């Protein structure tokens, strides 16, 4: 469904990505794991067109999406939950959700989707008139996910959704990710919590300093000795 071919990204003189190849099939959870600065977030941002690509290609449904502007990428159904949640703090929960549907014009469907986000996250409904900045970290993450769902996405890209959340909330977030997949969403997940991510993922890629070093089904990588040592904290 989404294909990334030989993607390179530079920031100024610094090379962030050197030749990334990803394939994401429909209704899969695909995860990118790796240490800080390995290039996980850069990959997502480059796909979204938020940072310029030095070279490489992005194909979405076999169409070339390499140089499509961000707003058109969003409009064609690729949504992103940005790192650090980044909810619109001074706007209400409901306004945040409405803004998620910015690229859409079908008012009735938008209203329906707001309802369904509230069904998925009852906490958000309770707080629909509250400013997003007053929500707890977990609630803000739910809002960030809900806002991305308002795009009505085919592919949902999540950047570190468990970052800075209490362990109990981390569990909730992963349950939500699983639920979204059951509903037919395709998910590209970037995570530092490698164990959780691999447990849930259909397919996983391991990034190191801007390069792919390993890939395979999530369960297989979970057993892999190198992954265990580097990311899962298992002693040799």
């Amino acid at each position: 469904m989404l294909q990334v071919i030989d993607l390179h990204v530079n920031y100024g003189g610094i090379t962030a990505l050197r030749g990334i190849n990803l394939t994401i099939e429909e209704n899969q959870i695909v995860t990118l794991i790796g240490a800080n600065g390995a290039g996980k977030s850069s990959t997502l941002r480059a796909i979204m067109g938020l940072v310029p690509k030095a070279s490489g290609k992005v194909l979405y449904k076999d169409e070339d999406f390499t140089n499509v502007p961000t707003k058109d990428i969003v409009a064609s159904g690729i949504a992103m939950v940005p790192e650090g949640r980044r909810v619109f703090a001074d706007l209400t929960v409901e306004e945040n959700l409405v803004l998620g549907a910015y690229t859409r014009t079908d008012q009735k469907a938008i209203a329906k989707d707001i309802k369904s986000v509230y069904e998925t996250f009852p906490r958000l409904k309770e707080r629909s008139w509250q400013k997003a900045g007053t929500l707890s970290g977990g609630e803000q993450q739910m809002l960030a996910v809900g806002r991305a769902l308002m795009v009505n996405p085919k592919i949902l890209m999540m950047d570190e959704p468990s970052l800075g959340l209490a362990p109990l909330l981390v569990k909730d977030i992963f349950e939500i990710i699983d639920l979204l997949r059951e509903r037919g969403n395709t998910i590209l997940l970037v995570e530092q919590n490698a164990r959780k991510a691999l447990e849930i993922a259909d397919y996983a890629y391991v990034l190191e300093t801007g390069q792919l070093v390993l890939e395979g089904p999530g369960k297989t990588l979970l057993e892999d000795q190198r992954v265990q040592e580097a990311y899962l904290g298992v002693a040799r």
Partner: protein
Amino acid sequence: MREKNKRHVTLLILALTILGLFLANRFLDPYKVRVINLSGIYVTLGLSMNLINGMTGMFSLGHAGFMAVGAYTVGILTMPITMKEMNFFMQPIVPFLANVEWGFLPALIAAGLISALLGVLIGAPVLRLTDDYLAIATLGFAEIIRVVFTNTQSLTNGALGLKGIPNYTNTWWSWGVALVTIWFISYLMRGTYGKAFLAVREDEVAARAMGINLFKHKVMSFAFGCFFAGVAGGLMAGLLGTIDPNMFRITLTFNILLIVVLGGLGKIGGTIIAAVIVTAGMETLRFLDESMDLGFVQIKGIPGMRMVVFSIILIVAVILREKGLLRRPKGREFTYVKN
């Protein structure tokens, strides 16, 4: 039901405003009427600046420059032909403007449009900057306008300024424009564009990830703000009858910024109230500049004393109400999504 009530309240306020203006024109002395006029103009100015600075989150300090453009446009376009000959005695006015004498409304619209056009031209390169850099760039731009107007003798009459601009501005014009501005900005903020402005203010990265075109919305907000700044400048020209480049110094921008901060960034109701309070306050404190007889002592008048007192009041107000005069009533004032 709630929506209907809101509409009734709006109509009531509108009716009261019209009645108030009518009574003011009838019974108040010209000085007070002038203060009312100024208040109306400052409402427009405050809202237009709040659109740029408060709602879209761009720290622009170019308002005086855009006002100057509007004021000169109205001044030149509405001035009677014979008056132009008298004004431009150092150097005759450029031929294509010499025989122009427009009505007030078309001149005001032209003032807004020229300001907005200039806003787009300036905004396109400058709005890529953020925060302090944008403030410096726009501030510089306003100064450039002032200097240019001082030196284009055959277009603006240079440092001599324009005298004898017809006094078209009355309370109906100043408050009429203010009401149009209030309506337009409320309408804008309720719609998709307004929400996008807020998103840009809140978080540019997240806004982009939602598919919002940052640049387009910034330029649009800037252009709308400049339009109303130009119109307000035009009203000012029509009120004062005399303009010169030095009127449009940075202090003018700061007066408006003060209204915006006092009214609350991004707040419409607060800005209106702050505009009236600041304008009327500056005038009512005028007695402080004069000598006072307290019975036991005589205080000599110190010119500028009212500014000192006014500044202190402002400092206190900002400390006590850092989020603006009006608190958000139960989280509703600044929400634009219908329930």
